């Protein structure tokens, strides 16, 4: 009888079979554990990172013997002593930290109006343009963008050529600290806008209208309504930009001209130039510790912002 086949199609049979297999593998009594099962890949990934950190911690306690280029079997804190006393490492750590703070502050200032306009504009065309402009840099990549700045800002770059038209001698616009900060701000801007936009979307437009109707000008509305409500976005964006800037490698390497290294560059040098993986591991651990302390401080002082997914104090 063909009617039976149409009453119970093949697709259904397959689904029944798959459900049967799923029930055999993961019985209904385990259902309460299903959300945890979904978490498993993420836990495994984090677990791998922790394993890596344990290995790095182990390496950080071993010193390099330059007569055999083997690491010591014994543990010592010699690498930590070097990292905390040698001027080079203190200089690059200070430079990384100051740059991270400056870049975070400047990026947030630039990102806010962009995100606000993107969220509030009544023009779908403008919103699309802003979105495309926001995502375009993601497709280019950090290294290519940094090299792009070399082309634009170099001695024979577009900017200096333009200055030459008004009889201004070529000037060194790259290979210095401001160039590194500039490159980092440009790199971080899309991240900050993306983190700020959801927080701004969550602010009802009616609140701003209400403030206006009660006599507040746009400055007061901005200071007393928009900014406080956007705080979760600022905190989320700030944390992301701060940690990414603190650990950046490519921008200081390319736009710094070799004399504006960050801690990440010093770590690379130890791993790949002097073959001292112990010291490199020590610097890496200290960078992780510094980043964690900074983020912990921000969370303690201001809450987790948008990163708390709506459960923040804000």
């Amino acid at each position, binding site marked *: 009888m063909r009617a039976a086949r149409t009453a119970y199609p093949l697709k259904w049979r397959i689904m029944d079979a798959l459900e049967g297999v799923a029930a055999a593998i993961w019985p209904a009594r385990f259902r309460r554990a299903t959300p945890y099962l979904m978490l498993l890949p993420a836990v495994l990934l984090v677990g791998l990172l922790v394993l890596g950190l344990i290995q790095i911690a182990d390496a950080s306690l071993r010193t390099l013997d*330059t007569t055999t280029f083997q690491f010591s079997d014994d543990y010592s804190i010699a690498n930590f002593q070097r990292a905390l006393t*040698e001027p080079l490492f203190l200089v690059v750590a200070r430079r990384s930290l100051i740059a991270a703070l400056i870049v975070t502050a400047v990026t947030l200032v630039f990102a806010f109006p962009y995100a606000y306009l993107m969220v509030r504009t009544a023009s779908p065309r403008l919103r699309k343009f802003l979105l495309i402009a926001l995502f375009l840099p993601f497709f280019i990549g950090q290294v290519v963008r940094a090299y792009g700045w070399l082309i634009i800002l170099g001695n024979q770059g577009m900017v200096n050529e333009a200055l030459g038209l008004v009889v201004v001698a070529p000037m060194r616009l790259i*290979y210095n600290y401001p160039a590194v900060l500039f490159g980092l701000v440009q790199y971080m801007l899309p991240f900050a806008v993306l983190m700020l936009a959801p927080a701004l979307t969550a602010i009802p437009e009616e609140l701003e209208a209400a403030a206006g109707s009660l006599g507040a000008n746009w400055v007061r509305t901005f200071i007393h309504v928009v900014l406080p409500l956007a705080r979760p976005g600022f905190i989320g964006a700030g944390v992301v930009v701060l940690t990414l800037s603190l650990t950046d490698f490519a921008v200081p390497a390319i736009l710094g001209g*070799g004399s504006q290294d960050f801690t990440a560059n010093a770590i690379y040098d130890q791993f*790949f*130039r002097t*073959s001292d993986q112990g010291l490199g591991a020590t610097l890496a651990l200290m960078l992780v510790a510094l980043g964690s302390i900074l983020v912990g401080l921000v969370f303690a002082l201001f809450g987790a912002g948008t990163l708390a997914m709506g459960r923040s104090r804000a």
Partner: protein
Amino acid sequence: MKRFKPTLSHLSRRTFLQATAALGGASALGLRGAYAQEPEKPAEIIVRAWGGSWVDSLKAGVSDSFTKKTGIAVRHDLTEDNEIQPKVWAAVAQNRVPPIHINWDTTTNATKSALRGVTEDLSDLPNLANVTDLAKPAGLEGFPIVNTYGYVYVLAYRPAAFPDGPPKSWKDLLDPKFKGRLAFYNDGIGFHFPAQVAGGGKLEDIPGNMQPAWDFITKMKGQQPLLGEDPDFTTWFQNGEIDAACTISTNAREARKNGVEIEWVVPEEGAKFDTDGLWIPKGLPENELYWAKQYINHALTKEAQQVWLDGLGLPGVVPGLTPPKDLVDDPSYPTTEEDFQHLIRISSKVQVENESEWFSKFKAIMQG
């Protein structure tokens, strides 16, 4: 090796290799048995190399002719020498097959690998019988590395920036007009030793007392030099970013080939002379090890060296090579005892044992 070529077509490769092995003398005796039976050829040999004109020269001089001779393709892995090192070390430590067959490396870097014990012994290469002393890595037992050429860290400059004639001393770079217009390697390599002399110190005091070098480098820091790696120098000269640099002559010559007006000198304090070499990591299958050795053996032939080093503009380790026309009597292409008197050579062992400290010191000055 060119002199064997006419007869090669009449001989089997086995006979040819046996003949070259016999020429290798006593050291080759142990290998002759291995050459008697040619192992299975791998599909390809992977050679780590530097990019740009460096790999182009290697390909033209060694790799292409090796492929033509053996039928084995050569793939060039352009991973940085510093970055391939930990990968090779990890592979050997974990008894895995290393990611490359041959590492084209600085002798200093290669010495680290040799000291760690991850290099194959190359003493049985037949063509080592025909090379100069330069091929032998100083301070190491046997041939864990074979040096294949030497090079000089010259003072390269744009003549337009030196209207009164070429610079005579490294001290000339301290002229305020060169502020921001100089370049050095970012680890100071090539500059430590001349700086020791320019700073009033003696080479004999290396490594015990290098304060004169650090003092001179501190003065040079005031000039706000750019710090980079090989490709950067060529680019910076081409883009008009710098007027002078302490760099390997090959990079300056490359810029000149690209139309940049550039010259170089060995200043009165001298210039560092060093070598690069080829080595094979431990852990390769027997047949691949055999063919990797054949590649290095081939790189030591006169014809391969001539083409390879014409491209690089560097003096090789086989007697009788002809300098490129543009480098005849050039200080960056030393061939006589007198040429070498102006150059500074410090043993790889001393360099390797102190490199980390020198590197940190240079960085501390330049990053401060």
